[in-house]
């Protein structure tokens, strides 16, 4: 497996996001591209990232190659990447060679770990409401609410998306709508569910990799966040609801 990306920051942000959910991850590469993710250890969230081969400047893969990496090692290696740095991943004899090309070239050799090959679970849900917005809008909303409490109520009322947090000192509420210009698209019926705010906050690093996020949910259904990636790639994060 070998791939080279021109935007190291974007790949680093994807890996950092996955690293917020799980300590290790399996990368599966095929001719079509790269897929990584899994269920977090507390079994509350499921992450599924698909990066098509066209996303990369160079991409080489066998029919199906599977490697396991310890995310902390890779994230540490990528901690100083800059915007115009290039990044190459190359697997060789049980090791991952990682090269960052920028003002100067840095190389890291990281041991691979043995992980079970992931079975990508089917998760077909009929969401009551869908909204599309800029990832920056989504992040700003979470930023406003982040210190207010620990669970977030996501609801839809007459086409508007309402995200609110109830804390010790009161309720904070953010209303987003197409009419107000902060949703790109919105459709569906009224619904409401409660989610752990900490799980939503784990996704904020996707801002460096994705400009648009689609949010889908229904009453007592998981929240699905689809972060759009170039070349029809995506980063899906599913978060199980709280039964409140």
């Amino acid at each position, binding site marked *: 497996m070998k791939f080279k990306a021109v935007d190291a920051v974007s790949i680093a942000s994807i890996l950092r996001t996955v690293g917020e959910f799980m300590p290790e991850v399996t990368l599966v590469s095929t001719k079509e591209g790269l897929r990584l993710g899994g269920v977090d250890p507390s*079994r509350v*969230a499921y992450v599924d990232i698909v990066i098509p081969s066209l996303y990369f400047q160079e991409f080489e893969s066998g029919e199906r190659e599977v490697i396991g990496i310890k995310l902390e090692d890779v994230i540490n290696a990528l901690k100083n990447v800059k915007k115009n740095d290039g990044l190459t991943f190359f697997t060789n004899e049980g090791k991952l060679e990682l090269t960052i090309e920028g003002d100067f070239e840095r190389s890291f050799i990281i041991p691979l770990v043995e992980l079970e090959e992931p079975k990508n679970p*089917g998760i077909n849900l009929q969401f009551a409401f869908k909204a599309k917005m800029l990832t920056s809008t989504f992040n700003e909303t979470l930023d406003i609410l982040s210190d207010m409490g*620990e*669970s977030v109520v996501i609801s839809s009322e007459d086409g508007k998306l309402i995200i609110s947090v109830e804390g010790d000192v009161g309720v904070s509420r953010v209303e987003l709508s197409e009419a107000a210009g902060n949703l790109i698209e919105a459709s569906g019926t009224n619904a409401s569910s409660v989610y752990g705010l*900490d799980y939503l906050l784990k996704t904020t690093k996707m801002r460096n990799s994705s400009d648009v996020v689609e949010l889908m949910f229904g009453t007592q259904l*998981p929240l699905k966040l689809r972060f759009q990636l170039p070349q029809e790639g995506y980063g899906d994060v599913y978060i199980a609801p709280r*039964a*409140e």
Partner: protein
Amino acid sequence: MRRIPAELCVRCKGAKFLCGLTSCPILERFRAVTNAASKVRLDVGLLQGSTPPSVIVGEKGYPKVSLSFNVAPEVVGEQARLYEDPAGWWGRASLHDIINYRSSLVSNFSMYRINDVWKLYEREISLATISERPVLSESKVTGKLETKLKFDGIVMPRGPTIKADDIRVTENPKVPKILDRLINDDVKANDAVLTLYRGGEDVYRVVSALSTGLLGTLKNRKLVPTRWAITAVDSIVGDSLLKEVRDLPWVSETSVFFQGYLGNYFHIIIYPSSFFSTWVEIWYPTSLWAGELTITDLSEDYWGKYGTLDGGYMAARLAALEYLTKIRRSAGVMIIREVTGEYFAPVGNWHIRETVRRAFNNRLGSFQGLGEALDLVQGRLKDGRVKLREIRAIKRVLNQTRIDSFFDS
């Protein structure tokens, strides 16, 4: 601390126990303090006796801090150990006994800058505080003996205080080999704490070593206020154990454990899950700090992230993680602490660590699930008005669904 109205004490005069306690804390403290004070030779400015060992580095005025080298006046040798012996006290000493021991220990203090560690080392003062046996000392003291006792939720109570102009250690401290080696090694404090813990040193000696600046890279050694050192050691060791526990297989059944000491009662539920910890404190009316029924809570996730740093929780967490490491299993942990009116004076957080450690030797039973275990604990609470299932941190665990329940079968 709960205030007992002065008019009640005036009417009672220590004879009628109108405050509801079984003995009068004012008289007990008075007896212990006068006993200790009578043994300090103020006329010649001399304090002689062994340290159990016991030391407290204060935090007020940081980076210029007080170091209290605590001495049991005219007590020599093994007898002095009784005055600071958390593991030995557990289950044997009552709250009154502990207050008596601490009231009898004279806090022999001097001011130091935090980087004065080598001065203390050269005079063997810091070495005496980590000795395996009590160490005899002789101090030149000046000024008045302040008979006021100081209580704290994290640090052990401090007895009557007097300013020491000069402290002389007059007996060789017995320093454990592993500690002796680390004092001379250029090792980060974090690594040294872990080496000591893994080498079998008890956390109390590790706290004293860290507090008196005996650990860390040679150039950066500093005195660390004892209150900070206690939480730092709990946290460093706990974090290391958590890293180990996180990857272990889950426990297969839900269990409830129980133990109580000094008016503090702990129910601990261990349930099948990845590591997630919930800490609930129920302070009953007339208990310390609380005039009315007060409930506080916090949660720690799989990654070791928690909302607020709580010294009591860190002590209990260490004990719970020690248990999980011992059984080689990962689990969800729910610790419910009830603090009753019997706990009328704070004596530090050591008893939380020790009681939770011992709770794991007392399993009440195995249960079908978390709900059933909570029902048992609910029925055993001292006050049925507390509804466990309505406490925020517990609700968070009970209400959280799992993503795999939404996968296509």
